[in-house]
């Protein structure tokens, strides 16, 4: 409980809060320098809200992720025999976090065609670029009535619950957003694009991956 004499304390808290809000606003802007955004990631990673500093900061950053043999289904997409298969930010493999592996992406980076849903099976680095190995979700058949088509401002649509067997390469810049998925019936899923993603997301993935490689 605050007493009536705590006005100065509240003012200090308010000033700190406003300054923090302005800083976050600046960090979210596209013209914010990349190295400042990377500083934020380090700050978030090593200084928790409890105010305790992680003393391992100088030892954790250069940690090297081990390379693994390329899985059989990924061999068609890369000439490498060993890759680092790792990512622990907002994009994940299906086996790590199902929700973080569901994305809407533009096939071939062609933004003139509508994005399609897919599931990330692997995240790997090839030719210096982080790439996603994705299984796309098949469209619903013409015989099914999509009850969501009547609501143009609610972009959920029905898709087949079957995934294409073959993997395809998707670059990070081809990804539009995450999506929510609900099993509408035994044969069909509802896919709802979630456009409110952070603009920092691809950068954060890039940065953490890079730091693991150093």
């Amino acid at each position, binding site marked *: *409980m*605050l*007493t009536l004499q*705590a006005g*100065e*304390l*509240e003012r*200090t*808290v*308010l000033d*700190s*809060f406003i*300054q*923090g*809000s302005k800083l976050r606003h600046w960090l979210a802007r596209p013209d914010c320098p990349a190295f400042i955004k990377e500083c934020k990631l380090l700050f978030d990673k090593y*200084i928790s*809200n*409890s*105010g305790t500093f992680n003393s391992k900061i100088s030892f954790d950053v250069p940690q090297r992720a081990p390379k693994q043999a390329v899985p059989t289904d990924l061999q068609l997409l890369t000439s490498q025999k060993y890759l680092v298969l790792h990512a622990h930010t*907002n994009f994940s493999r299906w086996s790590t*976090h*199902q*929700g*973080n592996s*569901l994305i809407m992406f533009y096939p071939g980076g062609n933004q003139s065609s509508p994005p399609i849903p897919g599931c990330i099976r692997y995240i790997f680095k090839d030719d210096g670029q982080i790439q996603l190995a994705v299984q796309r979700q098949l469209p619903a058949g013409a015989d099914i*009535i*999509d*009850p*969501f088509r*009547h*609501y*143009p*401002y*609610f972009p*959920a649509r029905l898709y087949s619950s079957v995934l294409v067997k073959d993997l395809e390469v998707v670059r990070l810049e081809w990804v539009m957003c*995450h999506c*929510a*998925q*609900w*099993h*509408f019936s035994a044969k069909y899923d*509802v896919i*709802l694009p*979630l*456009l*409110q*993603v*952070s603009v920092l997301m691809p950068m954060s993935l890039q940065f953490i991956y890079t730091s693991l490689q150093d």
Partner: protein
Amino acid sequence: MRHVQRVIKETTIPSWLRSVPKNFGEARAGTLKADEWRTLSTIYLPLALVSLWGEGSTYRSHELVHLRNILDNTMALVSAIRIACSRTMTQSRIIAYRTCITTWLSTLPNALPAAKPRPNCHMACHIYDYLKLFGPMRSWWCFPFERLIGHLQRLPINHKFGSSLQSFTPTC
């Protein structure tokens, strides 16, 4: 309500999206916060209601007409919320917001005759003006100040002001 709970439980979402209690609607679930209401009304509720009452559902014809009216009315409100919460705002979105919110208000007496008009309904129409004047709602909504109030309420006070400030500062 069981269907809504099932949708909440079974929907796969990314980790950055805050979900709502899986037992929503029960007393033990407590009351939802504003952010949870937004997630419920823009994701779970539309999925549940459209799958329940939308095209292709099997109800008797007179029931179906009434339920479809409620669904269309609710979806007009859902659409208005989604448009208003967009991170970017355009003239066409502002007009779409006005269309959706006026559709919701004009069809409300027919869909839910027991619902009485509230001052909030009138205020929701003025959001159209604010979107035109100030841009995306995220820039001027009051949630940052609500968060600040939350910080202030949670401040540990033992009449030693320096130590409480020291413990709070890293959270800003």
